């Protein structure tokens, strides 16, 4: 009985939002990789990508010291003053107050915190909401929540949306990023459907995000494209702009440029800024800096020029 009704609710949802063809979408994104970005366009892309990084540390062994050095890196990624600051640092809730201390209150770098029993989300709703409120109270500007994948896969879309709506309320003025955890949704059809369910209950300027970075498969050009197209369709339909954050697996500057080309050709110029698009990443930043340095000097510099050899920044 349950199985049948869940199948029916999926059917209804897919009919509403439309299906995705796997081969077609993967062929589409393969074309982004053939774009050739040179000279001024490359510089612009690299700098823009730096400004979109959510510099992340999400480890059990994180300490106030590690978070402080991460914050320093976020404020001043490179000696070159032409290199912008990153968009945000992303830390666990317990580290938010340390990040706030390191960054100060007068800074453009925002503090994002994963909350809602990240990465599984398997805690009572009350606990998850309390975590969100605590992070916001400690100074988080942005909350990265995980959706209830169990509820989604069981077809209990109302439950999934109610929980997101409750987190929206708990966020207050903090920006919300809704992590779909695409590898657990498995199909592109599901990713598109879950994107719509989330977008219908969040606010203009809130994000949908691919993944936690804690599973085997994270952001790919394919699932990024599915979500960008969902954002585009939702925007053209309702006028509500939703932002996007691919996270996990984007390690090289070249990859990030390819993702930005996808943004340029799917959502257009209005999404080519860090209010509408972010990269959840850690090692990406140093590769962006290395490429920027190479563009200006013509040579690749050793890793230790970018504070990379150390495990932290």
């Amino acid at each position, binding site marked *: 009985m349950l199985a049948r009704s869940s199948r029916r609710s999926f059917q209804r949802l897919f009919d509403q939002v439309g299906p995705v063809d796997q*081969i077609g979408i993967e062929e589409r994104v393969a074309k982004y990789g053939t774009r050739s970005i040179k000279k001024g*366009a490359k510089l612009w892309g690299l700098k823009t990508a730096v400004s979109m990084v959510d510099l992340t540390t999400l480890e059990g062994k994180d300490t106030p010291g590690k978070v402080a050095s991460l914050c320093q890196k976020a404020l001043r990624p490179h000696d070159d003053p032409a290199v912008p600051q990153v968009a945000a640092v992303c830390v666990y809730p317990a580290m938010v107050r340390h990040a706030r201390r390191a960054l100060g209150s007068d800074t453009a770098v925002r503090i994002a915190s994963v909350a809602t029993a990240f990465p599984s989300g398997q805690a009572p709703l009350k606990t998850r909401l309390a975590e969100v409120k605590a992070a916001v109270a400690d100074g988080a500007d942005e909350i990265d929540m995980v959706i209830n994948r169990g509820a989604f896969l069981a077809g209990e879309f109302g439950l999934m949306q109610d929980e997101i709506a409750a987190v929206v309320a708990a966020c207050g003025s903090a920006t919300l990023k809704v992590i779909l955890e695409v590898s657990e949704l498995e199909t592109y059809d599901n990713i598109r459907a879950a994107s719509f369910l989330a977008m*219908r209950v969040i606010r203009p300027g809130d994000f949908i995000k691919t993944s936690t970075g804690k599973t085997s498969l994270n952001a790919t050009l394919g699932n990024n494209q599915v979500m960008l197209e969902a954002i585009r369709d939702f925007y053209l339909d309702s006028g509500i702009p939703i932002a996007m954050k691919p996270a996990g697996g984007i390690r090289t500057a070249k990859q990030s440029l390819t993702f930005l080309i996808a943004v340029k050709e799917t959502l*257009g110029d209005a999404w080519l800024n860090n209010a509408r698009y972010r990269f959840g990443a850690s090692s990406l930043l140093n590769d962006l800096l290395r490429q920027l340095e190479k563009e200006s000097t013509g040579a690749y510099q050793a890793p230790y020029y970018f504070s990379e050899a150390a495990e932290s920044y």
Partner: protein
Amino acid sequence: MPALTAAKKSPRPAARPGRSAPELIFGDLWEFDPAPETADPKLKPRYDLFINGQFVAPKGGKYFDSINPANEQKLAEIALATPADVDAAYAAAQRAYDGVWGKMPGRERAKYLFRIARLLQDRAREFAVAETLDGGKPIKESRDFDVPMAAAHFFYHAGWADKLDYVAPGRSVAPLGVVGQVIPWNFPLLMCAWKIAPALAMGNTVVLKPAETTSITALKLAEIFQDAGLPPGVVNFVTGAGGVGAAVMNHPTPAKIAFTGSTEVGKIIMRGLAGTDKKMTMELGGKAANIVFDDAPLDQAVEGIVNGIFFNQGHVCCAGSRLLVQESVAEKVLAKLKNRIRTLRVGDPMDKNTDIGAINSREQLDRITKLVAAGVKEGNEMFQAACKLPAKGFYFRPTIFSGVSMSSRVAREEIFGPVLSVLTFRTVDEAIEKANNTAYGLSAGVWTDKGSRILKMSTELKAGVVWANTYNKFDPTSPFGGYKESGFGREGGRQGLLDYCKLV
């Protein structure tokens, strides 16, 4: 009970009055710098005829210019063959067939074909650049499609050459002798490979005439034949315009004629060959229907529509030039299509980021312009991308006609350019009827999430190829060819080989 409560719970603000509809901005915030392909195409200033393994001057001593359609500059001089040159080419082909190639064991012929394929791969970049300079197609297409696919055809048929006992189970096969071939200008190198590889694998020898605007890569392929040590006379190239083509087609020597080009010329050739015992294959025009049902994955369908009509500037005989879209999603598909077209990059074919290059010739540009003007005059609604076009060279903006009726010229005639006509339908039967209501029958596309509908459509559509949830996919193993006025005979696969042999 799980329930869908989305709309009710949504804090979606009411539509703001007085605001215009939301739009996407595809502007110049992030302009791409030029990214030209710089490989040397190694062009000669003058190309002679290729007869009996040698480059020889035409007996009439005349040459014509081959120009780059992207900037109208002269690339090289091409020999203008005379009837005497065509005679010499056929004589060389007959000698090669009788003396060497026809008797050579298949496993030996295979070695030559493998060698040609590998040499082509070795010089892929050089050939891609030459193809783009000569024909105007974007470098990314000649690099990623034309040249690799040409090599693939030689590889595939090399594989068959020693296995011909299995082409027709229970029968033996024998070569036909000399074959005469004429190819068009839309895929100059690839059409060479389509025509030459199966003919050679079967043991035939060839006299081929490339299109007058695009002879260069064929003659560069002749250099590869020399490097591969292909015996003299096995392949001969004669160059020139329609007159030379007629001499190749109407010559008494060939046992078979293979033609790819317009239906109009195909009919003339067939009239000329009536009453002879020559075998023929004709791959002619098309006006393919690309059919989108309301349950289709629409964004991928839009991608397929774009690929179907704007690939190679629409100079594709199987181009999906008629879009049939179900009424309930017509508006949505058209809106998505327009947004997609706004991001296409039209311009210098040598730029690696160019999606749509130059129209092949002024003559073709004039033809497209004339047909589009007719489409406007008939009252169809026209949309063109607002892209900048280079000042010099032959370019045409990607164009969509919507609200087109079946009787409109742009829905009936093959335009052979980046021009799409959009028609609508309501039911499956109406889609089939409209799709088949054409003199052509080369290809069709079906877009739906429902598998059983794909199977039904592919049996009902009178088209040689039916693509499902994709478009313009080619493979050497897959036979290609038409119904009705799109021609007969197949190229590629086992079926393609059977058109180059007799059963004994």
